[in-house]
């Protein structure tokens, strides 16, 4: 089982994600420069956070046109689990692997803070270790994270269970003050229709060691563990 961690010019959470997968979870992960990505040799991929191509024009849009995305699209169609974190989410949105849009935060400022994220779809490939309603503490750090989708699309996301994560308050409610960027319905992460491609704005890799968590939590590990488990299950099939 092998996980690709894809690096674009400007990706900056690649080494962090690698550290958590490789050193903390002992998974077979590999950092791979976007030009060299061949998904035939990988069973799963993570697009980590950062500022691919400096967020020029729009976060994620330039990377979305790179040949690596052709590889990832194919892998997605083959059912391989693909996770986009922060800028990775933006890239998946811009390349059409995930639905909707990510707009500039309504505060018009970059925001870095720890938030509560509620698991909406505990049965997804990335949440098998969590249950519906589980609250995960994770930090966000982004400029363009305001999730947006229009009427029909939004309705179908809800209906198909494609909304995977929402920002919530301490009481678990998706309230206005707990929404850090103005996302519609407090959406923090979504999946594709098939459920094997997921993107989220919060950073699970920064929430995977108790030493670095203000709450001594390791909630981010649930997402990575779920992913690794799903890969295993898929491989056995």
């Amino acid at each position, binding site marked *: 089982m092998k996980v690709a961690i894809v690096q674009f*010019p*400007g990706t*900056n*959470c690649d*080494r*962090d994600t690698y*550290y*958590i997968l490789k050193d903390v979870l002992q998974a077979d992960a590999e950092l791979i*420069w976007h030009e060299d990505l061949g998904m035939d040799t990988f069973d799963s991929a993570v697009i980590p*956070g*950062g*500022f691919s*191509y*400096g*967020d*020029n024009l729009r976060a994620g849009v330039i990377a979305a046109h790179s040949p690596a995305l052709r590889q990832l699209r194919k892998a997605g169609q083959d059912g391989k689990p693909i996770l986009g974190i922060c800028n990775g989410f933006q890239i998946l949105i811009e390349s059409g692997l995930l639905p909707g849009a990510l707009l500039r935060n309504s*505060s018009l*400022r*970059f*925001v*870095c*803070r720890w938030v509560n994220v509620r698991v909406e779809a505990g049965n997804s490939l990335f949440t098998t270790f969590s249950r519906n309603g589980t609250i995960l503490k994770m*930090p966000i*750090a982004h*400029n363009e994270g305001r999730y947006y989708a229009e009427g029909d699309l939004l309705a179908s996301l809800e209906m198909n269970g494609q909304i995977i994560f929402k920002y919530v308050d301490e009481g678990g409610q998706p309230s206005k003050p707990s929404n850090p960027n103005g996302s519609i319905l407090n959406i923090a992460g979504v999946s594709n229709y098939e459920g094997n491609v997921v993107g989220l704005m919060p*950073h699970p*890799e*920064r929430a995977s*060691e108790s*030493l*670095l968590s*203000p709450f001594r939590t390791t909630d981010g590990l649930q997402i990575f563990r779920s992913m690794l488990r799903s890969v295993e299950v898929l491989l056995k099939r």
Partner: protein
Amino acid sequence: MAQKMIFSLTSNELLAIKDGMKREPNDVELSIFDAQWAEHCSYKSSRSLLSLLPTRGKRVILGPGYDAGVLDIDNNQIVTIHIESHNHPSAIDPYGGAATGVGGVLRDILSVGTRPIAILDSLRFGDIEKSPQSRWLFKNVVRGIADYGNCVGVPTVGGEVEFDESYERNCLVDVVCLGLGRRKEVVLAEASHPGDILILVGGRTGRDGIHGSSFASRDLASGSDERSAVQIPDPLTKKLIVEATLKAHSGGYVRGLKDLGGGGLACALSEIADKGGTGLDVDLSRIHVREDGMSPAEILISESQERMLFVVKDELKDDVSAVFRRYHVQYSIIGKVTSSRRLVIRVNETKVADVPVDLVAHAPLQLWPSKRPEYLDLGVSIEKPPLPRNISETIIRVISSPNLASKKWVYEQFDYEVGLHTVLKPGDSGASVLRITDDKFIAISLDGRPNHCYRNPRQGAMGTVAEAARNTISVGAEPIALVDHLQFGNPGNPEVFWTLTESVKGIADYCRFFDLPCVGGKVSFYNEDVDTKRAIKPTPVIAVLGLLKGARHIRSRKLTPNGRMIVLIGQTENELGGSEYYRYIHGMSGGMPPNLDFHRERGAQRLVADAVRVGLLDAIDDCSSGGLIATISKMCIAGGIGAHIQLEKILSDCKRWDDLIFSESHSRFVVTLDPDKYQGLANIAKNHQIPYSLIGNVEGDKLVLTNNGDEIFSEGVHTLEKTSNDKIPSIMGH
């Protein structure tokens, strides 16, 4: 079209150049001298003073004089540190100026072969409550730092912000960067092997920033069109340069490395040749330029961002080049190292400059007269301000003043997490704590106390170091080194020069007494209003770096559960000169500033360090700006829990409640502990002969002050937090 050259060289300097050259220099040569002999590059006004600072220590591998200080933190690991300012560029283009300031200090850390792992920023502006200009500067400076640091993926983990009228026309934007590397991988800014190849890497050379370094060394012309000084940030290119440089370096390809900062290529070339004891032969026609028709002088002094100079072995140049190509980083092979001890510049075959390295690299010292300012004596004995009638309102106003209010609005714009190092984050404590390994940490605190320095520059500077050191001790670390940044007006003004001299002596005194080496620094002059000639308050800014072993020793200011005792270490004196209380509530700058007694300070620091080591203490914070009340309220807010403080228990000879709670006396800490451990603390305090008093308890959800049983203040911690958090957003509009 080439711009006309404007030189800032003095007539004495011109004479020295002619003497040294034994002929008339040409314009290209003059432009090299002009760039290298600018204050910014040569330190001609401050060099002799800076030599007062102790720079050696058991952990110091490289001290001042290199791009960054290098410290041994055991097991072959090193930490590097440097501080830079970008005051003048930020004043005219706050966004680009601040951003490129971050870019500059990152390059310094990279230049010694280490990966940048953290940024801190220290910012000073005029009164944002009154001045739209200062709000505009503040907003754009913060955004500039954020956009740059966030994009290159180096976390901004802490800093400070201060607002004071004296910075209305001269904002200060200081950035500290820390790096991490391996001891055997330190690389120097030297070209020491004749035959090696010089490669210029990174962005194209254009006309930006031409005269930037001589510009930084002149007064800031208000309203003038200093377009040429504008530097455009390009963090994406920087990120690629960082990765390419570290990759090339880890391949063992790099023999010397130098960033291009103030003074551009001219300064970089003369410095690497001087340090290496060699000469250089450079062909400007090889350089990748952005604009046509640049003159040789313009190419030499251009301050285009995102460039590095590599010195590599001839036979490795193809391997290195391959690394740059992989990261889409542009490069040109521009020349080679010679043994001539001359800096020879050509355009194709034509020699356009030929100067002796020794001459250009060593600007003649500039000596300035010095005179003690009169205002110092006038302001000492002042009448006490009237006692405020409304205690609650006064306390709330002070602790939510822009200087003391939460800086969440600032640090939430910074990615302070990337890199997985940040254990104590902005807002958690006075110092930030970074993980190096799972049981080795570094702590860093960045502080400036210009209002104390204004009253007494020597005491103020010493106190600034002490405060930064106490902040690192408060999180459980041991201070191992500092860097300083000296920001003053025009050194030609004898009063300014006197305050500079005193400040340096203060820092040096502290370093010597505490055996704390100064491993780097920076000087910024001409921070004065061109029209009124009024200088900023003397502003030495200090970053103290601490080392911490064992995660269990990490402490923060977060108050811990009900029932803990609150102890104030040290004695509260009637010292309110230069205090935030006097400034903000009474508009006063006079009075006696806090006095630093080295023996007492050392005792208090050791007491806390010892108590942490044996596990006696829970929350810790040092007591400084805003006094005891500001410290306690920050501790309550950080912990989300209340406290009861009994003023009559505080050891002090202050007669008035306001003096007592707002005094900024040094050598004090607020600590909390389990009542069972009180005796242990008492024993340690006795060893160090340091006074302490049990002043209250952690309890409830309010901060309550009583005086002999009478409640004089009571406010919910949530309300305090909200008031503190809302202050800056409400001033900034949203």
